[in-house]
């Protein structure tokens, strides 16, 4: 549950929250691209570090820590898999360079999770829907998207209640062999899916009784506008992208170990 909290919108006022979702989206895309561009640990660490002031500016340190803690398990797995596969298949590399490359892959994963976490922590689903709508996506699709996002925490809570109810009836989810464990989830998934379908039908009915789709051309109470800060963020993102492309083609990046020694 606490892992989800690391990706759930936190409604507070901060310069980052007030940014246009489209500007933030550009930033996240650039960050993704750059993170995938590099295999070395130094640029990836730099990417990780430049996001920390953003986290503090957005005042979401606690939630961000949650997403980091939640991804720790996967990070360790990625590290272990990289380490093992490089160790057995890379052949003539030294152990330190193998270690460094595995660490780089882990940091890359963490950077991706981190940027995702910041984006969703500071962007309300409504704003995101609005951004989609203003980008020309049909309203029905935008609405489906925002509804889906909004119902994630509801479903998570419901899943917990169902788990509790079935545990009270003697279900031990963590018992038995692999197949048995999969079967243990049937009593949880069936009520969850049935309720989700029922809820969606009810939602459709209430939407229609509130005249959903009555007007052809909807207008919005809020209209997104690109402001100075948004422009700055987009400029920064583009700069980051250009510099990264240049560096990755023309500059030799030394391994961290050689710098330390």
């Amino acid at each position, binding site marked *: 549950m606490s892992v989800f909290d690391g990706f759930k919108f936190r409604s507070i006022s901060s310069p980052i929250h007030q940014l246009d979702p489209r500007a933030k989206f550009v930033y996240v895309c650039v960050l993704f691209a750059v993170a995938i561009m590099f295999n070395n640990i130094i640029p990836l660490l730099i990417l990780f570090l430049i996001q920390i002031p953003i986290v503090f500016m957005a005042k979401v340190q606690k939630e961000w820590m949650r997403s980091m803690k939640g991804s720790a398990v996967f990070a360790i797995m990625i590290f272990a898999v990289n380490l093992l596969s490089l160790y057995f298949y890379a052949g003539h590399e030294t152990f330190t360079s193998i270690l460094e490359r595995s660490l780089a892959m882990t940091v890359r994963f963490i950077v991706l999770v981190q940027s995702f976490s910041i984006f969703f922590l500071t962007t309300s689903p409504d704003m995101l829907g609005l951004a989609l709508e203003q980008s020309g996506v049909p309203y029905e699709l935008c609405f489906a998207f925002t509804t889906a996002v909004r119902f994630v925490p509801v479903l998570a809570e419901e899943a917990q209640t169902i788990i509790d109810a079935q*545990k009270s009836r003697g279900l031990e989810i963590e018992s038995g062999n692999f197949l048995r464990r999969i079967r243990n989830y049937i009593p949880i998934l069936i009520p969850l899916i049935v309720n989700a379908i029922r809820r969606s039908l009810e939602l459709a009915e209430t939407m229609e009784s509130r005249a959903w789709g009555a007007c052809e051309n909807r207008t919005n109470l809020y209209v997104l506008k690109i402001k100075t800060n948004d422009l700055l963020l987009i400029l920064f993102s583009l700069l980051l992208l250009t510099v990264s492309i240049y560096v990755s083609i023309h500059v030799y990046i030394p391994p961290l170990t050689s710098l330390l020694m």
Partner: protein
Amino acid sequence: MIIVENLYFTYPNGVEALSGVNLRIEDGEFVAIMGQNGAGKTTLVKHMNGLLKPTRGRVLVDGIDTRRVSVARLARKVGLVFQNPDHQLFSETVEEEISFALKNFGYDEKTIKERVDWALNMLNLERYRRISPFMLSGGEKKRVALASVLAWDPKIIILDEPTIGQDYMQKEKLRQFILQLNQQGKTIVVVTHDVEFVAECNPRIILMKQGKIIASGEAEEILTNEDLVKEAYVALPEIAKLFKCLEEYGFPRNVIDVYEAADLIYKRLRARNERI
């Protein structure tokens, strides 16, 4: 016997749902836990079968600390029926639904069949035996959920909001049924808002507010104390309201039972008629 000692519980999101609850429920007792939404009633009963473990303090069920054993083990003693049956029904037939817990607890085929027959019969669900629980009405689903817990014959039965969505007749049947179980020696804990239902059952009442117990005592004492009941956002039962109005005519205040009320009024009327 359930002993709750200085229980504190904080949810992972930082909300403190229980702050210093002390409670003792004897074997064979009938207790109703009441209070406004978010007072911590459901959180408290989820500690009694170990679904939630105390942040501070402890909960003992028959002397066993709930932190030491699994929910599955405690559930054999403590049957918790959830508020919404849609959160537990999943089987193809009502029969299978009821046998789910029995299979989990490892009963043999023969016992399972006996217990399922008994539970179906007890809750008047015999004719739905081979029907999908999803086809039933709200009230029937609730009875299936109840049957699925009663089937393994737990010593302590906890019912979370059993009267929601039930019509008057069903409520009355449920009340008779709960009283019958209680007479058979079962410990009953009911979490509810339904003050009329409680007034008719006449159990021991525990009033909760903001994670604390603010009062505990006989229904006649608690449900006729207007200040206390108001503080817990519970309404006075209709009979208590009536007798509050009649107080200035010399009627007692602590009446919640319809028959007792009728008796008192009847006696007064007869005395007056005799005087005339």
